[in-house]
């Protein structure tokens, strides 16, 4: 009975919307819905006129807010750290000395590597050619996607599918380029798929985003069979067979391996090296 009454009310209301001149709001909603469905169908992730115009208006406002943010945050940070400045300074000086020594040793290895490659007549491996640095100015507010906005665009040489890294490792790739800003999809996004390899065995694997697992900052490796040589704590790097990503960029570490006895595959979870909660500056490098 209540179901019939509800049904009767809804159909009566719908008749009223379409026949009553006073209820023209309902007609506008229907027209609006049809127009929006068509717009959804014909637009995609690629930049369009609307996103470009919006980026010209929103990017300066982003820069203003982020500037204020840095000023206030920086001031508080400075005041909070005044007491520890001396010890921090000593610690940094020691670390600097160690890094200088490590850098010297690495340069020696680099020269030796170059000589050996020349002997074997192998072409020199490019280090990652940096196109530009960029600041993260906004993130997608929804829980389901891991997309953020950077303040560089077409005018700065950014192109679609450009690889984004920071000092910790692989961040993601550019998915939409406007004139003065771009959208970057993190590797933890469910739509992301990166061609990687296991650092020890160099076996190729596909790393997919799994932001709906655990706390949202996790990836997973697909199609790992039970006879794959993989251990917890293993490093994952970008592979040499990817069309987009240069080889050897650190991606993350294996944190969990789940074996399902009923199937021949294992679920492997990877924690990215990059801390997406505190990402502020990134580098864009040329892809292959």
């Amino acid at each position, binding site marked *: 009975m209540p179901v019939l009454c509800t049904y009767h009310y809804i159909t009566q209301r719908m008749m009223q919307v379409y026949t009553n001149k006073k209820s023209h709001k309902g007609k506008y*909603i229907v027209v609006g819905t049809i127009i929006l469905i068509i717009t*959804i169908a014909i637009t*995609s992730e690629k930049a369009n006129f609307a996103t470009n115009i*919006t980026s010209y208006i929103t990017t300066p406002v*982003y820069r203003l*807010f982020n500037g204020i943010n840095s000023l206030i945050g920086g001031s508080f940070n400075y005041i909070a750290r005044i007491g520890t400045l001396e010890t921090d300074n000593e610690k940094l000086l020691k670390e600097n000395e160690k890094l200088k020594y490590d850098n010297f040793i690495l340069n020696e290895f680099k020269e030796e590597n170059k000589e050996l490659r020349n002997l074997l007549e192998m072409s020199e491996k490019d280090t990652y050619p940096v196109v530009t640095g960029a600041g993260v100015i906004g993130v997608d507010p*929804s829980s389901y996607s891991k997309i953020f906005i950077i303040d560089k665009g077409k005018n700065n040489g950014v192109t679609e599918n450009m690889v984004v890294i920071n000092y910790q490792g692989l961040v993601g790739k550019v998915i939409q380029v406007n004139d003065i800003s771009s959208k970057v999809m993190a590797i933890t996004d*469910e739509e992301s798929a990166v061609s990687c390899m296991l650092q020890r065995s160099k076996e190729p694997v596909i790393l997919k985003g799994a932001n*709906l697992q655990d706390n949202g900052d996790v990836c997973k490796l697909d199609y790992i069979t039970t006879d794959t040589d993989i251990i917890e704590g293993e490093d994952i790097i970008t592979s040499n067979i990817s069309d987009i990503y240069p080889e050897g960029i650190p991606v993350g570490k294996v944190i969990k391996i789940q074996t399902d006895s009923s199937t021949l595959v294992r679920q492997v979870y990877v924690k990215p090296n990059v801390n997406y909660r505190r990402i502020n500056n990134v580098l864009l490098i040329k892809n292959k």
Partner: protein
Amino acid sequence: MNNTVKTVLGLFIFAIINTIYIRYFNIMGITPNINAIVVVLIGLNMGMAKGAYYGLYLGLLIDMIVGSSLGLNALIYMYIGYVSGALAKRMYNESILISTIAIIIADIFYNLVIYCTHYLPKDYEFIKYCIRVLLPEAIYTLGLFLCIYYLMVLIRKQINQGL
């Protein structure tokens, strides 16, 4: 300044601030749907038509700033604004219960549409999505809404006492 211009500018600034500061509200990968809160409040207080228009406007802004396709958020928030306005017309008398029901329905509706468009085509389990995203986000959004609601009531009381 005209109320419409104020609301339009206000929503524009809000959309930008939301994308800058929302990451600080992230708990275990879940962020509250503050856009839904704003649209529901507009719908409840301004009526069906304005709720739908401002919902459409805010959704379009979100789509143009961070969205994947132009129109999805616009469509969802337009309906949220329209239905909130309809609830206000029928039942709302500054009642916390109606506001609570409106925000829960709005958030669940938003996540259901996102599931149908993004996850159902990939055969992602609905139960898993509910446990991981839908329910936690609805609870978080509701909690934040109640805080904002009581803050608004407090401010209004202070203003009325001041007058």
